[in-house]
């Protein structure tokens, strides 16, 4: 009888035992989900028969109709994104913003269900967690918000979710009264905020208290915030309603809801 002892042979024996184990481990049967995946993607890429020309308003002047427009906001330096960028960016005057024409993809179908906002936090946590000073909207029309924090993009992201009320109708896309999101604009090099502006939606440059902003009117697809190598924050595009986007003091702010442009600007003006 041979009794193995000592540490030398143990790793080899253990490896051999593990390899033997791998032949005998029984995983549950692989589910047949390939067509479910494909079905979801096909629904998303079905062309909209009610295609209407899309107009971009730049400084009040109507410009050309483009089938699909992707509004790409580059925070900080321009990241490596294929397509035309810089020529148009200067036109718009929004630091790092460009509008990109992307005819290769039809806009994805839009889902309303989940808002991937991170985790619910208390007001104290919302002040403590991000790498910036938290700003809040001080309008009397807004009720008590739920607050969410996500660790992406870099520096963190805080979203205030205001409930619908008599004074603030629920958005068809999100089901809530108002979404107010903020994150740092200056420290992120590779964060890309993509809004795919679908048929009928209008993008307009606006002045938000002296800062440059964009008003997007009409339902459009919102991709969320992605960093080029950060796979954690990939999101399926969701339906977004009217939205005001602007940058100020190194921060990016976004307000979304079933509101008009002037209402959005009023909320923005209440920023503290």
């Amino acid at each position, binding site marked *: 009888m041979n*009794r193995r002892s000592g540490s030398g042979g143990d790793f080899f024996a253990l490896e051999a035992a593990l390899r033997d184990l791998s032949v005998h481990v029984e995983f549950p049967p692989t589910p047949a*989900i390939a067509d479910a995946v494909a079905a979801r993607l096909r629904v998303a890429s079905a062309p909209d028969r009610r295609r209407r020309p899309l107009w971009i308003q730049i400084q009040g002047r109507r410009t050309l109709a483009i089938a699909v427009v992707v509004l790409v906001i580059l925070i900080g330096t321009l990241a490596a994104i294929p397509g035309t960028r810089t020529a148009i960016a200067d036109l718009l005057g929004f630091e790092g913003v460009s509008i990109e024409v992307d005819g290769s*993809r039809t806009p994805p179908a839009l889902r309303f269900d989940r808002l991937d906002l991170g985790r619910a936090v208390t007001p104290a946590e919302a002040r403590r967690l991000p790498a910036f000073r938290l700003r809040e909207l001080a309008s009397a029309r807004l009720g008590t918000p739920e607050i969410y924090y996500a660790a992406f993009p870099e520096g963190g992201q805080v979203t205030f979710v205001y409930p619908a009320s008599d004074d603030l109708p629920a958005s068809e896309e999100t089901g809530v009264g108002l979404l107010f999101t903020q994150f740092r604009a200056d420290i992120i090099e590779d964060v890309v905020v993509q809004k795919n502006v679908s048929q009928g939606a209008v993008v307009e440059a606006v002045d938000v208290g002296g800062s440059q902003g964009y008003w997007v009117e009409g339902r459009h697809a919102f991709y969320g915030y992605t960093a080029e190598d950060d796979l954690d924050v990939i999101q*399926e595009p969701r339906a977004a309603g009217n939205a005001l986007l602007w940058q100020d003091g190194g921060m990016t702010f976004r307000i979304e809801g079933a509101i008009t442009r002037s209402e959005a600007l009023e909320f923005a003006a209440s920023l503290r």
Partner: protein
Amino acid sequence: MEGRPLEDEELLGLAIAGDVGAYERLVQRYLSLAFRVAFLITRSAADAEEAAQEAFVKAYYALRTFRRGSSFRPWLLAIVSNEARNRRRSDARRAALALRAAEDRPIGDAAPSSEETVLAEERRAALVKAMEGLREDDRMIIGYRYLLELSEEEIAAALGCPRGTVKSRLSRAMGRLRDVVAAAPGTQRTEVDL
């Protein structure tokens, strides 16, 4: 098991251009691996299925960030493992690794003596138990390396750790597994050669 790089490259190119059918073929190719990686993390077939499905959908939308020419498997497995970790429930509900019954021997194997069979089965069960007792990181890396035969790059992607640390992590995990196995009752007997 390597994929066939050229075909993947072609399918990827088509998928990036919006060809859902081409992507579906990619999904078929990687489905089993993705599901098993997810299962090792979630230990629930239902959660693993959901994680795999979400991961493939997200991967499609993220294809624009995939660097053409680099390896698809690690990139995909990073997404899969993220989704699986998001769906992991408490340890109490974790299913153990199942072992195939002794009758399911590969065809052509000479029938071992019944005592060898019993010993071998006991040894495997003891090893599974020892693995289950490891902390999560150790359990995962050993599972990825030996049960799924992932490469170093793929292990790094699935664990979300720097590639250069994989060897040392694996080595430490093996050391801890060896200690658990050595300390388990009955180990002396199963290591005996007859």
